[in-house]
């Protein structure tokens, strides 16, 4: 496993030295106590509290949602800290390194049109550096040629200095060959500069990979939402003054946000909303789905985006909500239809994505709602007669949810084919589940089900998956799994005129 690979900070050699509580500054890498042992962490922010100075730390190979403010007592000052490199801001190096790697394998990358397109954007960008030095975001861009070269050099140096780099899973066989495979696999999502990303977002999509430094730090500490208290995971661009508040209030139905309890109470006194402001397109005894047009319900959809941004790291709030439709899942009770989760979908996706962002609110997580959301997105794709895939990058939780959904459905079909002793193609599986063949293939790969036997490609069902499937089936006899009933969907794919497409939906 690649667990030990340093993910925080630059791979470049760093000046090391002992630090004290007063000299430790933003950008330093220090050893901090976390979950029972000291871990390498990057200091992203420093604040003074009544109990002393606190440091906002991002831990190596820990998701950002586990970032936290730590008191000085948890920092191990016995060990040396790595000082930030003054010439080369950390982010730039981090982004630049893979670009350098790419240059060695451009030939392979040509196979994938997406990768080549993005690569060409990068090269076009680097020819005309247009970023002024004054711009803060320049830190995050690898597009200045000089910087690029430095990065390449650094990369080579590092490789020479640490020959065991990436060695963890390269136990057998030719090391370089494996490296090439690895590099090739990594290529389809080469890093993008912020400029490219904004350019891409202009045309479509909802995901971002690069974030400015402020947005790496969680800004809202606690949220009162409906009957629940939520602890946000990530930064969300709520009004800046809210960062001063201990608690932010969000109206459960219209999703309006308040820093002041009196204002929130006054709002609740007037707010008459009891369900998402759109058309109900699905209802069973458990959940309802509503379809909401980002252009018509701008305020509501913006509020939803701000809310979900607190739990989705890569969600972009850079552009407005107009080109998206929002499919909102709710549960009903005597108070109204409570937001459980949602997914957004581009009105017209150039890449054939059927989901842009997808989220189950934390208070409803681990209850199977995510699976319902995912199933619903594929049911809509089936009605449209399209194959769909979620927009990338996926979050860790997103990947797990999708993997689970894909696995369960594929195993079910494959067991059926196995019983009938019938053959099946990847295409047929894809068409049956409204998944892209690419997703089918990667799932089969991840489950190690593709084999080569007696001169033929075959699919093998691992016993542990069959067992688990049988266990699930057994369990479902007593407690049936919640599923979407496609017959209850009252939905026609919305159509848009050429003028709407041209003039921003």
């Amino acid at each position, binding site marked *: 496993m690649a667990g030990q690979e340093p*993910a925080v900070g630059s791979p470049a050699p760093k000046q090391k030295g002992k630090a004290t509580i007063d000299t430790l500054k933003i950008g330093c890498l220090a050893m901090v106590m976390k979950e029972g042992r000291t871990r390498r962490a990057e200091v992203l922010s420093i604040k003074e509290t009544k109990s002393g100075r606190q440091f906002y730390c991002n831990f190596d190979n820990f998701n950002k949602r586990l970032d936290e403010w730590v008191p000085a007592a948890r920092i191990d000052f016995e060990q040396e800290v790595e000082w930030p490199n003054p010439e080369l801001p950390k982010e730039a190096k981090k982004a630049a390194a893979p670009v350098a790697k790419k240059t060695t394998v451009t030939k392979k990358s040509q196979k994938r049109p997406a990768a080549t397109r993005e690569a060409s954007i990068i090269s076009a960008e680097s020819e005309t550096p247009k970023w002024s030095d004054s711009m803060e975001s320049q830190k995050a861009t690898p597009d200045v040629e000089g910087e690029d070269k430095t990065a390449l050099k650094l990369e080579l140096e590092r490789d020479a200095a640490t020959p065991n780099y990436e060695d963890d899973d390269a136990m057998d066989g030719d090391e370089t060959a494996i490296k090439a495979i*690895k590099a090739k696999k990594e290529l389809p999502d080469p890093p993008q500069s912020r400029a490219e990303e904004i350019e891409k977002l202009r045309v479509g999509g909802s995901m971002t990979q690069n974030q400015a430094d402020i947005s790496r730090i969680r800004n809202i500490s606690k949220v009162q939402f409906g009957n629940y208290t939520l602890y946000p995971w990530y930064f969300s661009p709520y009004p800046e003054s809210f960062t001063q508040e201990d608690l932010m209030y969000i109206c459960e139905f219209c999703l309006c946000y308040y820093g002041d309890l009196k204002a929130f109470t006054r709002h609740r006194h007037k707010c008459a909303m009891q369900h998402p402001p759109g058309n109900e397109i699905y209802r069973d005894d458990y959940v309802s789905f509503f379809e909401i047009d980002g252009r018509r319900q701008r305020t509501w959809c913006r509020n939803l985006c701000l809310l979900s941004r607190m739990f989705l790291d890569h969600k972009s709030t850079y552009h407005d909500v107009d080109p998206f439709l929002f499919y909102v899942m709710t549960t009903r009770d005597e108070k*109204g239809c409570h937001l459980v989760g949602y997914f957004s979908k581009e009105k017209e996706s150039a890449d054939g994505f059927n989901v842009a962002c997808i989220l189950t609110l934390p208070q409803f997580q681990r209850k199977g709602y995510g699976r319902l959301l995912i199933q619903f997105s594929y049911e809509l794709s089936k009605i449209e007669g399209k194959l769909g895939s979620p927009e990338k990058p996926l979050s860790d939780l997103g990947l797990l949810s999708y993997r689970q959904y894909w696995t369960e459905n594929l195993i079910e079909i494959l067991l059926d*084919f*196995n019983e009938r002793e019938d053959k099946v193609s*990847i295409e047929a599986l894809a068409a049956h589940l409204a998944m892209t063949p690419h997703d089918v293939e990667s799932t089969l790969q991840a489950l190690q089900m593709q084999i080569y036997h007696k001169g033929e*490609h*075959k699919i093998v069902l691992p016993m542990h998956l069959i067992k688990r499937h049988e266990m699930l089936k057994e369990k479902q006899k007593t407690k049936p799994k919640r599923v979407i009933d496609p017959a209850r969907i009252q939905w026609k794919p919305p159509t848009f005129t050429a003028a709407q497409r041209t003039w921003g939906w």
Partner: protein
Amino acid sequence: MPPRHVRQRKLTKATLQQVLREDQIESAEYDSNHNHQHVETGVERHEENEYHLQAALASTGGGKASEEIPAPPAEKTVDINYDALYSLKFKKPATYIRVSYTVEEVTGCQYDMDSEDDTWLQAYNQGKSASQKLSEDDFEKIIEVFEDTTENHTPFAAVDNTLIPFETMSAQIKLRLPSKLLDIAEHVYGHWKDRKQASGNKSIQPGLKFEINKDDDDADPYVCFRRREVRQTRKTRARDVQSVDKLKKLRKELEEARQLVALTHSREVQKQTMMINEKAIFDQRYKVKVAKTKLGIKGDDEDFINQKPQKRKSEFPQPQRTAPGTQLRLPGRSDGRPLEADLILLSERLAEKENMLQKEIEEKTQQHRRWNQGHVDLTRDPLSPANGQGPETGFRPATAQYQYLMTPPSSVTSESFDHQSPAQEKQESFAFRYSSPPEEEPRGQPAYRRRIGRGGRLWIDRRGMSAIKNDENMSDRWKYDQDDEEEQPVYELDPHDTNALRFRATIPFPPHFYPQHGRQDNRPRAPGPPANIRAIAAVQNPAAPP
């Protein structure tokens, strides 16, 4: 092992693959394709190696109890009165919900007072009588007006630091709120002004940051929901042609409008010159008059005033004639040019006459109908035309010489039967129903009608020839009942029906009454004629149905 890798056939999406269970195959026999492959996850690369994700992925792949990715949990709030805050009850409609209202439309007043406002309001209400107190709702409404007006009148207030004076505000208050709030509004204005200045002349309510100027905005993560740039439409030949056509049409329409304006202009100019000329003439006449008076010529004043109408009269020889068409005429046509519409066409005259005739006939028909209004028909099967009272055109009485000939007169075409001049129509007699059945029935007189049926078949309808009584109501009964031909005919008779009895008693037995009801007449019959008309197919079409 390595050579085998090379020999592997390519796996395509369409390749049909066998599906096996792990226990159906010897594990030593096959190569897994994944030994060294890195599976694409779609997760960002630097997050892919995250400790918890890897642990979770490993657990799902390995069949162990699945590991969860830790996340800050959500909890039930304990210190909030949920039922008080969310007091509305929800009633699930039976059908799927369909609404389009926006957040702004259902949240009432857009200003929500906060604790700072509350402090001020409580201080303001201190010691005031209940009627004097300012309610929270009214307070919010007043502030809402202030904020709205600021946004509308000075959208850049935050930049140039302008503050709208109370005079402007009071005008808005008067417009939007009840007048009793105007006095209080002045007090609220002071509070609002303080808050406004404290917030740097921005909106009092915390709001999102939107793009203001591009340079700092791009890097500011708090700036959100920027407008997306308009997407470039793809240029195609069809789109080009479409655009060109649109432009051409627009250009043509503009050109037409321009010409219309130019023509109107020249018309008005001509009108003006005409008036000038008229005035000049008048002036000249006036001079003549003056000269005449001076010279003592006692002429008639006509040449001064009357001349013009006279002249006009000669110009328009028939002013009366134009009267019927006046409302149709354009006002601009007063230059006396005779209009085509004024010509009375012969065809119009004829049509008018025809209309009059038609009207007269209709009137008479109506009159007769009125006469017959109270009439109760006691007959079971009225012999006179019951359904259509219209004239039975087309039947010509057969004269004696034709009576025994089967060939009808062929000299008159059916067209001329149908199309008759209005003059003839007037002379046509109507078979009006009187209170008693007419004495002489046309049945005695044989008559013929020729018509052209479907497919060009020629039909001869004859009347007064057949002796067979054809009961209209009964005929249907046997239509699909051919087998019963031999059976005794069934008469549908109500034994207690005195009406029929009474009627029967009054009339003599028709001479040609035969009780041959069972005999069916399958041939198509003429629409609406009396029952005893039979139609026979003409000889030209032997294939006609029997």
